[in-house]
């Protein structure tokens, strides 16, 4: 119940900051919780694939991610805010992605 209240409060906080005037309903809170669990479980399962590189690295990353994600909960309302229709944030992430891709394609090809 405590987690549910935290999620409701965080959705309210974010909606007050944005121009979005949607009501915080039982349905939207449940959807946020479901999305939260999906995100955390998917990230942790994906991190297990690091076993292809090194088993110890995989264990360290999975444990680290698990602790970080639990501490950072709830993540979805913040993620939703980051993925808003704001043009500034879209351009920021596009340029960030371009930088990462170009860097990794040079470094990654020579090291993976």
């Amino acid at each position, binding site marked *: 119940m405590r987690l549910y209240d935290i999620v409701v409060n965080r959705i309210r906080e974010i909606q007050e900051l944005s121009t979005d005037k949607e009501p915080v309903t039982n349905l939207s809170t449940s959807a946020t919780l479901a999305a939260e669990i999906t995100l955390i*479980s998917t990230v942790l399962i994906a991190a297990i694939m690091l076993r292809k590189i090194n088993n110890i690295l995989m264990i360290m990353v999975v444990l680290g991610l698990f602790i970080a994600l639990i501490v950072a909960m709830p993540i979805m309302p913040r993620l939703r805010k980051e993925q808003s229709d704001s043009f500034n944030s879209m351009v920021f992430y596009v340029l960030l992605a371009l930088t990462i891709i170009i860097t990794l394609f040079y470094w990654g*090809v020579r090291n993976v």
Partner: protein
Amino acid sequence: MNPLIPIMVILPITCALLLNLIHTKERSVKILAIIVGIALPVIPLLANYGIHYFGGYSPLIDNPQMAQGLPDMITQSALNLFHPAITYSFTSAQKIFVFILGLIAFLAIFTSLSEIKKASGVYAFLMFMGTAAVTAILLSDDIFNLYVFFEIAALSQVGIILASRTEKSYETALKYLFLGSIAAPMLLLGIGFLLGLTGNVNITDIIYSINTGLVDPQNPVLLLACGLIFFGWLYGSGLPPFHSIKSAVYSKALPHGAALLQAFSVFTFVGLGIIILRIFSFLPFTQVAIIVVSLLAMVLGITMALMQSDFKRMIGYLAVGELGYIGIGLGLGTALGITAGLFQAVNEAIITAFIFIGFGTILYKTGITDTNKLGGLMVENPKVALLVMLSGFAMAGVPPFNAFQSKLQLVQASITAGLPELGIIMVLLSIVTFMTFMKAFYTIYLRPKPSELEIKNKEIPWATIISLVVLLLICLILGLFPHIVTGQLEQLAQGLI
């Protein structure tokens, strides 16, 4: 030479230009659009497999007459094999892709002509122009020609959103255009680097140059070109970081327009994705990058869909999330994985069009897309509600629909490739997709009707119902007989590994 190959592109372009000229004559617009719309899926079925050289300039090795009298430094070198003309290649895989794209284009145009009060020649022009551009992307073996059509497809998409005239459609179209002005020049720069290194824009010739050592495969400029083309691919298909704008694009278009726009994204994804795999398959990191971006698309797309209360935006995010499944298949790099990924692309294009047109009936009857303001629509039209429910089942991968087969094959491919984690994630996200859809279905159809909701007293057009039934039948046929498609795609998959 097969004249039907270029006609797949030339016919919709000619029709688009004619529609623009006669845009005020409603009856003529309707007749021309329907006739050419029917021809779009029929031509790929009639065309023979083969290669078309524009201008008739085949490689010298296939054209001894032209090679006569030329010095040995040309006829005895790689120049003898190179393709001087813009080349279109039509194989069994292209047949399936162009047929499905043509069919979706026809159904979208057919539905739009019946749902819009006054048929718009400009709107139909944009739909045909986009279809022609994406068909060219699928057929072209010339990377610069592909870029030209990539830009035409992007502009057509912007035009379709502008012509939809929904709330904030102008703002979204401009944002998409501006982001395109970052991504598309990067793609062109990547193509320019490839041209600079290999002296060629023909994809087969570029691969030849890399494989035979004419170009150093570890050349940093080649790696940069790969990164830039990869970035352009993300924009064209709507993968992260372009997932937000792509889902906004779908949600601001009219439902029939969105059905076509998502097909453009899926087939641009496939067309460019295949080219990236063909040219850069010697770099194992390319496959890793494809898998990482696809995973991101799946997780962000599907979780964000769950958070939406606007049903058009929800489907938009789901469409982006489903692209991830295709990418996983391509990224696995095995014959089974690539076949399953391409099969998923065909299925996704059909199912998302089915969902967009199905949910479009709600917009048609109420003019509302916010699920908080909807409810009780099951009583209004239970048959359409059933069709919409089945479209959601198909997207989530419920048997006996087509996505069940492709998702099952993807899970099998991931296990065979030694990455069962990907299979678990795909199953998990399919369940969440189903949950997302059922949340929307419950709020729109099953819960009591809000007292302030006004339902327009007009029948859903028969053209819309026909489109939904046709799409449902295709989902069922491909679900029961998947080899109809997978048999055609295996050849391409074998060639890519």
